[in-house]
């Protein structure tokens, strides 16, 4: 099987500081990759470099499109990259306020990617939006309310619907459970896991929470000081860590 996304030797420096140091990884179709590491280990930089939000200093990000073409994402023109981000890719932000339009209704938030894609029939858009709100367990009566009136967990679920409505092939999540309390986290993780299965999503989930990796990831990568120190099947990495840093990280988790 050929990987959906291949990263080769990605490096990003901020002046003297090397935030991502020669990072390579493969993501296969249908795979969920958990990227763990402490604050400042370069996880978010890696994610932002992948989506082209940051210009990398070295290395390649190669993506295989639905049409079978190989795209070097970090060498694409901005127009094509932005198009890719709105069609085949999806990014879920840690803070739903970064990913949602707070001054338009929840329904309009979900509709946006459809409209971006050229949908111009109100009836069908509304139907799709309603179906997606139901899918992420948001009361359809709230469709015309602003996301600002939603709880944190609802906002995060709304963000999921907004990203998934166009069935992206690759979803990147940055700390999707950050800032949520435990019961809400559990419900969200459950939802993410269910959607990943039913839609066959390929995902990269960045988190500092070992528990999140255990619950939703097939494969785990551990980052420290911008380098990947350990990589393997999630259960193996978490139950039998080889690298001293991973051992420390796993033993530091409250509920291992």
């Amino acid at each position, binding site marked *: 099987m050929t990987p959906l996304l291949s990263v080769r030797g990605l490096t990003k420096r901020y002046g003297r500081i090397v935030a991502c140091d020669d990072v390579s990884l493969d993501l296969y179709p249908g795979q969920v990759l958990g990227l763990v590491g402490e604050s400042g280990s370069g996880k978010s930089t890696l994610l932002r470099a992948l989506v082209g939000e940051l210009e990398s200093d070295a290395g390649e990000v190669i993506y295989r499109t639905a049409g079978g073409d190989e795209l070097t994402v970090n060498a694409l023109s*901005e*127009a094509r990259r*932005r198009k890719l981000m709105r069609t085949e890719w999806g990014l879920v932000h840690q803070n739903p306020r970064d990913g949602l*339009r707070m001054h*338009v*209704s929840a*329904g*309009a938030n979900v*509709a*946006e*990617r459809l*409209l*971006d*894609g*050229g949908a*111009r*029939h*109100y*009836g069908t*858009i*509304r139907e799709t939006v309603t179906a997606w709100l139901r899918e992420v367990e948001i009361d359809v009566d709230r*469709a*015309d309310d602003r996301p600002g009136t939603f709880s944190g967990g609802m906002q995060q679920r709304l963000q999921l619907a907004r990203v998934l409505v166009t069935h992206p092939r690759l979803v990147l999540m940055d700390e999707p459970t950050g800032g949520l309390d435990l019961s809400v986290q559990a419900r969200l993780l459950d939802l993410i896991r269910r959607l990943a299965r039913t839609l066959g999503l390929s995902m990269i989930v960045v988190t500092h929470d070992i528990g999140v990796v255990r619950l939703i990831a097939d494969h785990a990568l551990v980052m420290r000081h911008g380098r990947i120190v350990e990589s393997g099947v999630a259960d193996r990495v978490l139950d039998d860590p080889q690298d001293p840093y991973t051992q420390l990280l796993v033993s530091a988790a409250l509920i291992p």
Partner: protein
Amino acid sequence: MIARAVPPPAADAAPRGGFSFGYLDERTKRSIRRGLLKAVAIPGHQIPFRSREMPMSYGWGTGGIQVTSSLIGLDDTLKVIDQGADDTTNAVNIRRFFAKTCPGVATTTRTAAATIIQTRHRVPEAPLREGQILVYQVPGPEPLRHLEPSEEKTRKMHALEEYGAMYLRLYEDISIHGHVATAYNYPVLVHDRYLMSPSPIPRFDNPKLHRNPALQLFGAGREKRIYAVPPYTRVESLCFDDYPFERETWERGCAFCEARDSYLDEVVVGDHGERLWICSDTDYCAQRTETA
């Protein structure tokens, strides 16, 4: 069309009281005309221009006045309207401004007699013809501004034709009101390419922009932008397939001229809330009452 725009630097148009013909100096006018040429070449695209301080506050039509000033010549006849009327403060003062700064230029209230019509918030009811220029006063030239406060980002959205989000307002209107409730400044797509704010004209006037034989120029003084719709250019109002664009309609005609095809203003005429619906275009109304 613009070729005629070079005004005669004639001797009788010499500066009066220290002012150039049309208030602006020749160099400024030339730079504005250059902006206008570019605007005509790229219909609907906003061109930055060196907007000058004018002897009136922003919001009073400084953009439109600068455009008119750089076009007007001795053989022109100027008409100025504000909300369709020739006799409101804004219109009267701008007309007087040009009468003072352009000695020898005729002014009129008749749409048919005018070569340049400067307007605030209306398109005249009487159809325009080739050779006429309609100059709009524009407060906010950027249709994407309420979605995206950053100029850098809106420019990128225009460049990449990312206009999907613009439909969100229509989507919300239909979801909440069951129809599109945007009544003025209704966004349009020009020449199948650029999204454009038609300035705060009522939705009623949007169809008049489409394939209009006259040249339509838009000037925003505070925001320092010029844009244009050349004659006979496609101008489409945004809509959904199942919710086509509709103009406003009234159940009555104008109280003076009984016109049913004209945009009507609701005027309160008594202490007990008595109302009158009358044409907003005063010239159109006057022509009709005269001929009747």
